[in-house]
């Protein structure tokens, strides 16, 4: 079962025979690197956050990960930075650390290493710093003591203090070393990773594994123990270097694309200019960095956010087995609770949807108990092609209201060819109520979910067409 795993751990090369499904947090702590803490083991607290750097097209890309959910196989060939790796010179604090001292941003200290690591990762982003909000980098970290106010102040001070950091990544590394934000060994990381001589290959996909493992953010929450004794095929970031592309009138998204890949994609941003308005509602930064589209769809949870998104785009999924491929409409992909049409040997290759040909509108709505870093109570996405107020084409998806992710076919059908006004939408909401069957659970009662979906359908239209429908007309 064990496999050889090699990676750079802070400034030290590690080469170990490990069960590939061992989560990185357990490995680190077994090495007496106890700065990363186990707070929840489900990616919901961020106390175990570490930075993962990987070579992609000879570029070093750093991202934060929840080490409690990342199997060591997924860090093979990577650079892992833990809190211990930030202070190799023990006497000197980094500015990130000093900012916490000044603001008293650490109380009990249990969550603190995760925050320090995540804030340090802000400086290592491959994007320009001014394009990023430092607070987004700690959206996956929870502190129970401070109420976050002091942490927000510390982060704000950091963003201001280093706003002149170079945009160019290589130049920035020197700057960061100079400012003591990262230790000097970071300058040699690329070299050292190349020295590991790792060739990342696809696992043999014909060996019928029990599970294909993408980013692991669902599987390792649900069945970490089972993973240790299952046959696994690890497919994270290993097939398509260009994960999102245009092809023959379609937008194609590789199943291995992470949520971050999708949100950062130039093509997706062009198609959905408002995507930044709701992208933060999907998980947290470290989860988005690891969760793949394929995983989100195949987990088949009725409340998958990306699933709702792609469902409204009337997407197809392309499955392959050995040399054969088949295309299934995403609408038909889910058969019952957490079940899909995919057979065990099949692998989801990519998802595609037709590029819009005429004027279109898109909106995504999600409500959860906590607005951010939470699983949806109800989510819904809407894609609409219209001229003036006349609907030529419309697709509405909804999550959390049925045993599978739901394409609201009756509702969409009804709205096609209608004019947008309060009476029409009211009828659409009524029809939507007939094609869902939510249940009461920890996320909300049945009647709440019904009311919520109806309000979110109104929200789609009020947000996109405020001149055609007002909230007063909906009560």
């Amino acid at each position: 079962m064990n496999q050889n795993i090699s990676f750079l751990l802070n400034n030290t090369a590690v080469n170990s025979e490990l069960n590939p499904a061992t989560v990185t947090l357990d490995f680190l702590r077994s090495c007496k690197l106890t700065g990363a803490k186990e707070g929840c083991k489900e990616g919901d607290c961020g106390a175990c956050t570490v930075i993962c750097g990987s070579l992609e097209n000879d570029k070093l890309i750093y991202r934060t990960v929840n080490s409690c959910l990342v199997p060591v196989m997924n860090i093979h060939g990577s650079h892992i930075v833990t809190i211990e790796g930030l202070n190799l010179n023990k006497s000197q604090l980094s500015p990130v650390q000093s900012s916490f001292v000044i603001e008293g941003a650490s109380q009990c200290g249990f969550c603190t290493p995760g925050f320090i690591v995540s804030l340090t990762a802000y400086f290592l982003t491959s994007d320009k710093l001014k394009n990023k909000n430092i607070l987004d980098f700690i959206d996956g970290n929870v502190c129970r003591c401070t109420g976050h106010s002091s942490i927000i102040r510390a982060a704000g001070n950091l963003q201001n203090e280093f706003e002149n950091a170079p945009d160019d990544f290589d130049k920035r590394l020197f700057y960061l070393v100079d400012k003591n934000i990262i230790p000097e060994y970071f300058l040699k990381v690329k070299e050292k990773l190349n020295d590991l001589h790792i060739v990342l290959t696809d696992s043999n996909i014909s060996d019928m594994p029990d599970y294909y493992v993408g980013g692991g953010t669902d599987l390792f929450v649900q069945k970490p123990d089972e993973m240790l004794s299952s046959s696994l095929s690890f497919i994270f970031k290993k097939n398509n270097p260009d994960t999102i592309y245009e092809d023959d009138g379609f937008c194609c998204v590789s199943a291995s694309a992470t949520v971050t890949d999708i949100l950062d994609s130039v093509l997706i941003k062009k198609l959905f200019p408002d995507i930044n308005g709701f992208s933060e509602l999907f998980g947290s930064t470290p989860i988005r960095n690891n969760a793949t589209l394929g995983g989100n769809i195949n987990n088949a949870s009725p409340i998958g956010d990306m699933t709702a998104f792609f469902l409204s785009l009337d997407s197809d999924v392309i499955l392959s087995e050995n040399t054969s491929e088949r295309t299934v409409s995403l609408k038909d992909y889910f058969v019952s609770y957490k079940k899909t049409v995919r057979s065990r040997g099949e692998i989801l290759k990519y998802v595609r949807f037709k590029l819009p040909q005429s004027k279109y509108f898109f909106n995504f709505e999600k409500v959860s108990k906590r607005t951010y870093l939470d699983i949806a109570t109800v989510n819904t996405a809407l894609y609409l092609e219209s001229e003036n107020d006349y609907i030529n084409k419309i697709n509405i998806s909804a999550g959390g209201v049925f045993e599978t992710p739901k394409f609201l076919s009756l509702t969409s059908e009804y709205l096609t060819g209608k004019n947008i006004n309060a009476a029409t939408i009211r009828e659409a909401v009524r029809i939507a109520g007939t094609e869902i069957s939510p249940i009461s659970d920890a996320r909300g009662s049945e009647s709440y979910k019904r009311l919520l979906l109806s309000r979110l359908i109104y929200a789609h239209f009020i947000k996109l067409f405020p001149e055609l429908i007002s909230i007063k007309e909906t009560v």
Partner: protein
Amino acid sequence: MKDYDIIQHITGRSLFIDDIIVPEGTLYAKVFYSKCAHGKILSLDLTEAYSIKGVIKIFTYKDIPGINQIGGIVRDECLLAENEVHYIGMPVALVIAESRFIASEASKKILIKYEGLPVITDPREAFALGHLSIPPRIFESGNVEDVWDKCDIIESGKCESGGQEHLYLETQGALSCPLEGGSIKVISSTQGPSAVQKVVSEVLGISKNKIEVEVTRLGGGFGGKEDQASPWAALSALAAFLLNKPVKLILSRHDDMIMTGKRNPYSSDFKIGLNSEGLILAYEVTFYQNSGASADLSPAILDRSLFHCTNSYYIPNVKATGYCCRTNLAPNTAFRGFGGPQGMFVIESAVYIAAVKMNIAPDIIQRKNLLKEDDHFHYGQKAVNVMTGISWDKAEKDFELPEVINKIRQFNSVNSLSKKGYAYMPICFGIAFTTTRMNQANALVNVYTDGSVGFSTAAVEMGQGVNAKIREVISRVFSVSHDKIKNEPTNTTRSANTSPTAASSGADMNCNAVLIACNNILGRLLNSAADDLSLKNSIGLFIKDEKVFLNENDTGLSWDTIVENAYSKRISLCDYAHYSTPELFFDRDSNKGNPFRYHVYGTAFIEVTVDCLRGIYKIDSVKAVHDFGHSLNPVIDLGQAEGALMQGLGWMTIEEIMHDKKGKLLTDLLSTYKVPDLHFTPAEVNIQFLDKPNPVGIFNSKAIGEPPLMYGIGAYFAIMNAVREFNTDAAPEFSAPFTPEKVLLKLYENTFAEEALSTAVNNSDNKSK
């Protein structure tokens, strides 16, 4: 402030229990717990679990050498279930194995059969059946019955407040190591080392002097580790003692959430009477406290609800009744505020509904009835150095609240998709353990011959900065810099018979004990210095910046030299001191007395925006004027205030504990139980220091841990106001937390949208998760 602890934290070097390098041969424990909320155990089969390689031993109650009893206030709680189980999560057996993983796998193989008994989760139902842990408690002043007739307005109603998960980021745990001679050392993540020592002593049947309990720090406590750290310490100690091997027990998050108690949910009835001017004449309240399956600390928590049932208001006639109702949930326990928040939420609800009835803003009633100097609380204590009106008026003026309120009104007049609401929230919280005998602490201060200082007290550090405050006291008395002062872990061999670090009193009491010890040492050092200087006595001698002065003149002696000289003269450089909080008494029959050393006051103003389409909301700002006294450490105190506030806001809004009818916790993971995150934090949290001296506080300071939590209560009423701006037909209702679900349902209560829904097709056979 470069504090020792924070440097360890930010570099990842702080050692929590799970980080300690364990001795060779350490075994790992996993608790097997009941999956049935109430039932008889018919059989327990360990055979299959024992067949797993690496399983060393599985303990049940039969293996306990001492007594199987851990109840603190009431002797009603087993460590391991005997013939019956009383809640889901009740420990039944303890699996010991070579690794945490094996122990966990083996526990899944234990077979248990139950015969189900009726499950009660509702405190009123428990009350109706007479399931009370202690006799009813009644606090009374004046006579409400005589006054109702004189009231112009009488309102009564019902009020619910939910439980709250502590969610300390470090789960419960302990590491126990056998020592020679049948003694044992327990490293525990507890707020109460002496409580752990007592429980371990009773369970093992050995005397307390054979049990050493040590605590370096906690990864958060919030009350959850006051009494409820003890079972895990006792279980690991039991195994370590019987197997003669070190045993570590760390709860997984899921196990912790299922097995440990939370803030007590309350269901309450209230009746309030006012005159036409808005003056409150009478208030009657009955608290049905959900204590869970055993009393734990619930009786003491209930008392604090009764003490704080009038919050910051003077009410001449009060009758408050409390029932500690036993249910089939995990025993509920201390949580920051300790019953105070539950009591205050009810009076605030009563004031709100009275204001609605009178068609005035609640703040008019709130302001008019604020406590004044020399008013008496309903438990007989006189209010002194009262800061209610002062903090209210300062908040109003400094934050320009009338202007803010105008802007809110303007916003609401032009916006239909979202509405704003606001609320004032004054607080008043008594400082001391209401169980008088617990108000004592002790401290050991060692000055070493090189002038460095070490201290060890009863206080447990859990992020509240108590050690930094103690260091400040030592630094002020000895005039030495903070980096010369080191804290030692809290340890029962150095500080015996201590009270838990709780009730916001940890800093007050332990700083005072340290102050006594330091003054004793300094007295000896200055006498010795007087001798060195050939003075008759030490009058006029003092130390500043590590130099000894006589009146205003530098004597040439330094801290280091007087320390060294004193040692040479065989004068003790160490001191152990005990402090007991003075002037406390309380008669538990009449429920009158002077239970608190002083009170902490303040006023907050909370502003929220409700998204009326989606039912979600944002707390825009919290502005407060808080009575810190003269803060010993403003960075720490501000952090405590901000952190407590956020827990209060969470309790009132998104933190929702849910059980099904069978007593199963539905919100048993961080994916279903949501605490405030970064985005939840209001854009503006502005807490101003009132900075008035507290003559009975250490260096004029005041306790800080709990009081600001109760500012969060205002969020409930701010949201209610915003909702009622949108839906004027929505009836005020008092059921916290005010989740987005309740908000949306309230926004559309009695509207077409709600009616349309009730006619919707309903086929709820399918799953949706």
